[in-house]
């Protein structure tokens, strides 16, 4: 199993600013993922965070808007840049070992 610590758990941000979300895992994992869950919706994969190389982004998501860092096998960050109210969502970090484990999520509200 894997225990994931994600922070902050929630934040209220002004439009035009940026927020960096941190994800810490209690063991080394190869695959880390960032998901977005908009209000009342399912989870959508933003990108796969690769250790030692650039993240792999899904269609509709770009590095300039969602820069990701993966400095080692236990840690990753996701930044939501130049925020607008449409970015208000829950952002979730996930790791895959024998199954997919999720952090508690970061509930972001942009005003």
């Amino acid at each position, binding site marked *: 199993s894997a225990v994931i610590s994600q922070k902050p758990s929630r934040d209220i941000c002004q439009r035009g600013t940026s927020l960096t979300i941190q994800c810490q895992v209690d063991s080394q994992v190869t695959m880390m993922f960032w998901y977005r869950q908009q*209000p009342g919706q399912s*989870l959508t994969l933003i990108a796969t965070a690769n250790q030692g190389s650039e993240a792999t982004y899904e269609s509709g998501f770009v590095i300039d808007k969602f820069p990701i860092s993966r400095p080692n096998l236990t840690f990753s960050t996701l930044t939501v840049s130049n925020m607008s109210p449409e970015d208000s969502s*829950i952002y979730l970090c996930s790791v895959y070992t024998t199954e*997919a484990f999720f952090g508690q999520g970061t509930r972001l509200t942009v005003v």
Partner: protein
Amino acid sequence: GESVGLHLPTLSVQEGDNSIINCAYSNSASDYFIWYKQESGKGPQFIIDIRSNMDKRQGQRVTVLLNKTVKHLSLQIAATQPGDSAVYFCAETRANSKLTFGKGITLSVRP
């Protein structure tokens, strides 16, 4: 806190009855399927999984059925309890890569 299930379809069942939650998946090449439970304010929690070489798998009070012919997955919960109230998501993946989530259903248990 805000419920992520506000805009999702709702299944309402009487406490003690059996629940059946259905999911249609999209990729006929998917070979691994998972059901997740998400309670308000939390990340998704693994319930049960099934691989494509099986059509049924049982856990404690839960059973997952897979029909590859019609790309259909179902989750059966026996003797539904108030603690089962949550949003339920199915997810599919191929070769243990990224997960694709279904739309989600809110299960509401009536006392």
